[in-house]
């Protein structure tokens, strides 16, 4: 007689990996289908754009491989699709299948889901950002940089699109939808540096970056930086 642990191991391994059990379990295929469908459904929903860009056949081969091999200690079903990102990285799946943008596309779409569900931030009592003060960041946003414009709904997937792209993803405080703001590389560096230096004023950080690049800080630069920071205040990125 097999122990209950051994029996559970056999049905679990068959359901997830298709490893044939030594015991003849009736209807075991039902569990295999249910486990597969649950995983695939969550991935299909979370990565709708990536699925479309890959095409059904390539997408399904990725899902098949993932279902058999992924290991998720995440109890929350809606967060399970995040595991596809680490799976793709470890398996180097995109490079092997000549889809070099795959990892970036997965990361972008996962962040849409994660930010949509992110815990609420405390609201800001400021209606204006002064660049003479340090930047205070909210929580429901993310700066992302890509080599491919994976965030554009109709990008071509051609290597000609390879470049340097930066966006700020943020959850709109009014509509609670996740929105995308494209930013240039300079602003990307500015936001990153502000985040890393919470005790320095925005102006100090700006001058440091400009100085390091041999550029002069004039009134026009200060004005556009102030406008940018106040836009981030409206987005809820700064508070």
């Amino acid at each position, binding site marked *: *007689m*097999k*122990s*209950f*642990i051994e*029996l*559970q*191991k056999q*049905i*679990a*391994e068959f*359901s*997830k990996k298709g490893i044939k059990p030594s*015991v003849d*379990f*009736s*209807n*075991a295929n*039902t*569990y295999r289908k*249910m*486990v597969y469908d*649950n*995983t695939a459904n*969550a991935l299909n929903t979370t990565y709708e754009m990536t699925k479309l860009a890959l095409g059904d056949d390539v997408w399904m081969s990725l899902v098949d491989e993932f279902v058999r091999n*992924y*290991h*998720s*200690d*995440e*109890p*929350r*079903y*809606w967060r*399970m699709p995040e595991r596809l990102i680490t799976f793709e990285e470890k398996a180097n799946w995109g490079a092997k299948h000549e889809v070099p943008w795959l990892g970036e596309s997965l990361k972008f779409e996962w962040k849409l889901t994660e*930010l*949509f*569900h*992110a*815990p*609420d*931030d405390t609201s800001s009592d400021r209606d204006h950002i002064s660049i003479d003060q340090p930047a205070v960041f909210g929580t*429901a946003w993310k700066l992302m940089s890509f080599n491919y414009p994976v965030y554009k709904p109709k990008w071509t997937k051609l290597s000609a699109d390879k470049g340097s792209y930066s966006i700020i993803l943020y*959850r709109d405080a009014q509509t*609670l*939808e996740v929105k995308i703001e494209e930013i240039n590389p300079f602003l990307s560096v500015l936001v990153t540096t502000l985040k890393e230096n919470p005790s320095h004023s925005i102006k100090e950080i700006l001058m440091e970056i400009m100085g390091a690049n041999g550029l002069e800080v004039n009134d026009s630069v200060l004005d556009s930086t102030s406008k940018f920071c106040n836009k981030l205040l409206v987005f809820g990125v700064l508070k």
Partner: protein
Amino acid sequence: MIGIGLRREIAHDLHRFEIQPDFLELAPENWMSIGGYWGKTLKEVSESRKLTAHGLSLSIGSPDPINWGFLKEIKSFLDEYNIDIYSEHLAFSTYDNAHLYESLPIPFTEEAVKHVSNRIREVQDFIERPLIIENITYYTVLDSQLREVDFLNAILAESNCELLLDVNNIYVNGKNHGYDPKKFLEEIDTSRVSYVHVGGHQTLDSGLILDTHNNLVIDPVYELLTELVKRINPTTPILLERDSNFESFAELNTDMKRIKEIISPELVK
């Protein structure tokens, strides 16, 4: 009391129920620690209705260690929303410390009774409220040293826990495994029943019945419910399970009305 599952598809359509649900059941894993649109929705519905929680990921029947960190989050969530009823599937959903995101059956053995009962007691102590265990549907029998009903009764007695009796699951299991659902109902310890589920199912071409919660509840299941309510506390909450196929609200209203007719016919016109 009659309730309905809080599904995102209907969360903003609760006004369309002709018989208003007294409570809403949610899967805590889908709602805890979230903000934004759905966090706001949860706050709103919790202000007008009582909530119950039906967990998906505890994996009470697993040989893996209990995930105490996860359970701590569950407890905080239950406390935050004043949820007294926390139920889980008598099943396992993790293997090798990895989630399968599906409820798989436990072998009906004495060894499993001891293992599961110990874990139920530990969890109840930790969450400081009853852990209500549900009879699941199972499509394969891993070991039948005990009959299903004896297995369930043994766990209820040994762990001193309460039972979420799913009458559709009794019907489905009876048909799939060749036993009389009414006899099961006579033999199960109904004094332990503190929560009831009723739902629809789907029959495959092979004849196998799946517990899909996407159809109208059928008459034989209502007959079982009618029998059950004679045996349990009349205030026991009853939940209509519906996980998909929400297009027809008429179906939901039909099922809600039929449940109401069974538990309090004098209140239904």
